[in-house]
């Protein structure tokens, strides 16, 4: 009989269920109900094959969950995503939801391509109290919450266990200080009979963001900050100079690393055994496992006076639209995605922001967790890059910005550290004053 009822009506069983669900939610959500099968578009930058598959899988589960909302994800590389998004916003065709880094949030909030989500947080039941303070601060702009912080991805320490053992070191006791690290780096650097280095102890490539993240971490470890209290660059401070000089000395004085090894797209100095240790985010865990490398991770050693580690975080925000018709649907997905973030976090290789998710068996019970754990342990020490509206132009790592060009010049030896940092400060200040 039930079948007959559905057959005679114009609704399928799924639509009826969806309508029921949306009707039930209607009272609690802003702008009331949404139509059954409401479509929500989501743009993201997780474009690796594994990431896309993982994300699409999770979204499929949501779409089939009978919540009356269908999410349509589209992946672009980050640069394309941002330019496409701003242009689409100008043309009134912006996606509903966008996933990006919290450091980029002030820029998008200033450009008014995203809207505050305090109302959605309240109506959808999103529990931001589970997110650490730094994450909540990161998504707050002008006193309003603009996004849901999803994960955190700090820099971590990867080392090749076989090489460590061969060098007579104990892989269970990774270096915790700068001195211990240098000792490992020296012992892990291998030379052939003619004195030519065949393997470097440490990877410090000149051509990608890694060097910047490492220097940034060390700058804070040495007691420095990237910006001064006037909001201008403080990169020429003594702490910052000491941090960069330490890295340059690893190249020129100690010979344990070479900025020409690794870093570019497609190059994998760690897997091709050109280096024994590297500092990179948790997103390489799955890659190393797939390569069946015998590796381990640890917290970043403390080179300066205190622990500090570069980190960033992905967040999900709502694009500014002509009307707010889809807010309820947006909120439904955002809450569900945040609550069920363990699966995408594991596959992408990032640490959930939400304490509940981070400590859930769905995350800690994975085979990846033994590598993720050191990143989780380092969470109290994370430092985000400054949350400024000029973030994309200042911190882009694939453009010859004052930051990138001068850092490369210092590492390659074409400029002494103080000169490079002085030039960097001048260039950065010009960018920062642009507003």
């Amino acid at each position, binding site marked *: 009989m039930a079948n007959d009822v559905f057959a005679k009506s114009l609704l399928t069983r799924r639509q009826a269920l969806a309508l029921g669900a949306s009707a039930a939610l209607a009272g609690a959500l802003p702008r009331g109900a949404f139509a059954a099968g409401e479509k929500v578009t989501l743009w993201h930058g997780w474009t690796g094959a594994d990431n896309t598959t993982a994300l699409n899988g999770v979204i499929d589960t949501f779409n089939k969950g009978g919540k009356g909302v269908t999410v349509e994800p589209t992946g672009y590389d980050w640069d394309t995503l941002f330019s496409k998004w701003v242009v689409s916003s100008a043309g009134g065709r912006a996606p509903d939801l966008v996933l990006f880094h919290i450091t980029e949030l002030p820029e998008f909030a200033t450009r008014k391509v995203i809207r505050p989500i305090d109302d959605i947080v309240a109506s959808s039941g999103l529990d931001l109290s589970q997110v650490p303070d730094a994450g909540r601060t990161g998504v707050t702009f002008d006193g309003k919450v603009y996004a849901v912080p999803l994960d955190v991805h700090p820099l971590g320490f990867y080392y090749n266990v076989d090489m460590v053992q061969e060098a007579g070191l104990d892989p269970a006791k990774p270096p915790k200080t700068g001195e211990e690290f240098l000792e490992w780096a020296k012992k892990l650097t291998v030379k052939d009979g003619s004195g030519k280095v065949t393997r470097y102890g440490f990877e410090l*490539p000149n*051509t990608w963001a890694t060097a910047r993240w490492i220097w940034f971490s060390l700058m804070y470890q040495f007691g420095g900050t990237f910006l001064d209290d006037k909001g201008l660059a403080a990169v020429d401070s003594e702490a910052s100079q000491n941090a960069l000089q330490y890295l340059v000395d690893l190249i020129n004085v100690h010979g344990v690393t070479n900025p020409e090894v690794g870093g570019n797209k*497609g190059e994998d100095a760690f897997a091709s055994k050109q280096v024994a240790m590297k500092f990179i985010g948790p997103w390489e865990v799955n890659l190393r496992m797939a390569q069946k490398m015998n590796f381990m991770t640890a917290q970043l050693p403390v080179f300066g006076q205190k622990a500090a580690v570069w980190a960033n975080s992905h967040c999900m925000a709502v694009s500014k639209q002509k009307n707010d018709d889809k807010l309820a649907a947006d909120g439904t997905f955002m809450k569900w995605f945040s609550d069920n973030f363990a699966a995408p976090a594991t596959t992408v290789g990032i640490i959930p922001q939400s304490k509940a998710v981070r400590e859930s068996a769905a995350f800690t019970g994975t085979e990846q967790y033994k590598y993720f754990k050191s990143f989780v342990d380092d969470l109290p020490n994370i430092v985000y890059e400054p949350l400024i509206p000029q973030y*994309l132009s200042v911190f882009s790592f*694939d*453009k010859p910005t004052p930051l990138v060009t001068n850092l*490369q010049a210092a590492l*390659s030896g074409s400029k002494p550290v103080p000169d490079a940092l002085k030039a960097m400060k001048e260039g950065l200040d010009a960018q920062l004053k642009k507003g």
Partner: protein
Amino acid sequence: MTSLASQPAGRSRARRASAQEGGAVRSGMTLAAYLFLSPYLALFIAFMLLPTLAAMGISFMRWDILGAPEFIGLDNYRQIFADPLFLTAIRNTFYFVFLTAIPMVVLGLALAMLLDQKLKGTTFVRTVVFLPYVVMVSTVGILWGWLFDKGTGLVNYYLTTIGIEPIAWLKDPHWSMPALAITAIWWTVNTNMIIFLAALQDISEELHDAATLDGAGPWQRFVYITLPLLRPAMALVTALTIINGWRVFGQAYVMTQGGPEASTFVIVQYIYLTAFQNFEMGPAAAAGVVLLLITLVFSLAQMKLMKAI
């Protein structure tokens, strides 16, 4: 007399009539020509001419895409010429053009001459030489990124077999642009080859036969027959190579992102960065106009050369 007098008048009437007919035919043909051209013209106007004109207009505006444009005169031009990064981009792009232009023309001609021979397997080799053309720039960039790697790349492997120390092609500011030039030559020399090949096949065999009978050797035939008859193709290829050189972007963006130390930062990347990452459409459009003027000079030079030939 009348008949004599009327004769020219009658002829002129006939001429007028035939001229009118001719005019009608000609105007019919002109219309047909425009009709045949119209699909391309429509697309050209919509996607090239109008955006170019719009960019010229935008180059005098302050505009961040989201807000309303505001007229600011020549400020954008002043801004880009005061920006050391733009001047670096011009210098780098010129260096790229310098590195690629001569090899692209000489190699294109050499390959065409080689593949113009009626030998076994020529068609296969032609296909192989032309194949890189259909590969996407991102693929080319990633592929050559591997080949140029200092530790594991094939290029350095072969260099070391002849006793040359490995070069950090994409990480040494002195070698990064030559590396991009080599990539560009491998990727696009085949288009020059095709143009030369077509031109070579247009040269009548009889000219070579006659010269051979007169005792001309292969070098003399090349210098006195092939080269002079290839002049129009040469002018076209040279101009196209130079213009495409000024417009280089993909390889630099994929392989080095303009680095290291801004050594491969080119004009189009400056435009892209300024427009779509900093959202400063005015200075980006101004840089685009400067690039247009540079390429226009080479186009005009080529047209003048073609006319002279």
